[in-house]
């Protein structure tokens, strides 16, 4: 059974002067368990809106979203449970930090869940470990941390809720390359341990290519493609029409393949590219 299913989901923002602006149009998809799903799309294509729909913050104007076969909005009063099952970190999540210490901030979610002190403690320590937060900063003020550390604190705050589905809205935007790599590694390790569904919204195609099992391509609120990264990134012309690019390594390997008249498969990961180039070089030497 799929973990999340969307059936004809539409959402429109009320556009002030009385007319509605559609932001998500009749989306249909289903997400299987233990997958990392990438979401790409131009700014304003509705990625964050989709994230909020899945998290139950906003209610679809039409259609329904099923979590483990059950409609999110079946029981209105229970929507808070949905927030706990589908954890969401917003863009720039560090702006939501507010407690005196990193520890307390991570504990905010689990305490809201009504867990015992001991359970909260284990949750916080585990989440901190997953997010790569060292023990010595747990007692510091979140406002004194570096950008990357703040970001990881905010992400740990959601991991501590222990959601079945974790949605990360552009978790690496505005970070330096090292901060970015650290966060991606944390997410990947977390996924490998937990085996839960992760929905990963990003602008950076290289990250999507390295991390994801499947990719959603959004454009103006429409779900244009939903397929493996390999398939999605082999359609470079469609992507460029939507204002998106393929990963750099894909472009490079395409040229290498053309020049050497070797295979025409789409390469999206660095490791595959290296292996492929070595193979080509070996072939030439013979």
């Amino acid at each position, binding site marked *: 059974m799929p973990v999340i299913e969307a059936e004809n989901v539409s959402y429109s923002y009320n556009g002030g002067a009385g007319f509605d602006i559609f932001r998500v149009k009749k989306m249909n998809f289903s997400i299987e368990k233990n997958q990392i799903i990438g979401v790409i799309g131009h700014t304003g294509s509705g990625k964050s809106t989709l994230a909020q729909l899945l998290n139950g913050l906003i209610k679809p104007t039409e259609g329904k979203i099923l979590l483990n076969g059950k409609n999110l909005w079946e029981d209105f009063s229970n929507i808070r449970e949905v*927030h706990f099952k589908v954890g969401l970190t917003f863009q720039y999540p560090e*702006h939501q930090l*507010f407690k005196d210490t990193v520890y307390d901030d991570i504990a905010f979610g689990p305490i809201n869940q009504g867990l015992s002190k001991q359970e909260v403690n284990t949750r916080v320590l585990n989440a901190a470990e997953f997010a790569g937060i060292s023990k010595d900063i747990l007692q510091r003020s979140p406002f004194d941390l570096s950008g990357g550390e703040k970001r990881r604190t905010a992400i740990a705050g959601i991991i501590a809720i222990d959601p079945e589905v974790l949605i990360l809205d552009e978790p690496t935007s505005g970070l330096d390359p090292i901060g970015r790599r650290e966060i991606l590694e944390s997410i990947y390790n977390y996924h490998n341990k937990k085996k839960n569904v992760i929905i990963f919204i990003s602008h950076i195609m290289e990250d999507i290519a390295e991390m994801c099992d499947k990719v959603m391509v959004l454009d103006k609120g429409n779900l244009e493609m939903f397929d493996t990264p390999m398939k999605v990134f082999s359609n470079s012309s469609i992507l460029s029409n939507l204002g998106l690019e393929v990963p750099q390594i894909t472009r490079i390997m395409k040229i290498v393949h053309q020049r050497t008249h070797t295979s025409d498969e789409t390469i999206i990961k660095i490791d595959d590219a290296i292996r492929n180039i070595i193979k080509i070089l070996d072939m030439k030497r013979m």
Partner: protein
Amino acid sequence: MDIVLGQYLPGNSVLHRLDPRIKFISLFALMIVVFSAWSYLALLIITFFTAVLVLMSRIRVKIYMKNTGIILGMTMISALLNLFYGSGKPVFSWGFISITEMGIQNSIVVMTRIFNMLILSTCFMFTTSPNDMTYGLQSLLKPLKRWGVNVDDLIIMITIALRFIPISLTEANKIFNSQKSRGADINKRGIVNKIALFIPIVLPLFASVFRRAYELSMAMECRCYGFKEERTHLKRLETTAKDIFALASILLLMIGVIFCNKINPTHLF
């Protein structure tokens, strides 16, 4: 959260294109006219004038009604109460309730005045962008410089404050949502719970407003704000024929109202 702030509705009508300084002066003059009119004929002329302005703004009447409806309704009710507070000969009486001729006149005059005042100021709000408003105000307040009031800084403060309001609202909304998805219970009752909910939202909001203010002041300093005394504007305010025409017609209206008050006075004031 759907809060419309600064009710400006972009457009290209004559009213949109008027010099904001002239619009400020006109609005002020119209307020005086509205409150000095006490004859039925004068009120009728004013109402007609208002209707023409509404049409000229090229904004649908429905939108005016939507925006003024509640305030209008409330003031109308209070004006209606005027009916029962008139001295003189009762026109109608039933038990302790009596309605006098003066009461009727009173409430008609009050209602018409409030109605016109509301619609006129709404019309001004709809057709004047916040930028135009502040520039207009700046230009009008310039004489205050002579008394040591720093008009330019005052205006830049107002402009920035106006800009900050929608940004902070969006930010507040985002913070509210993110705490909600961390399970902050928004439905709990009781003062302690409400305060407990307040902190996770207000604290980050303050942090973000201060951060923004700091970044903005840096950016302004980088552009040498405050380095030179006289600042110029991208858009120069210009008074043209249509502005003169607007002033002239308001002057005409004033004369008309004074005249009507003379020849067709209601007996009260």
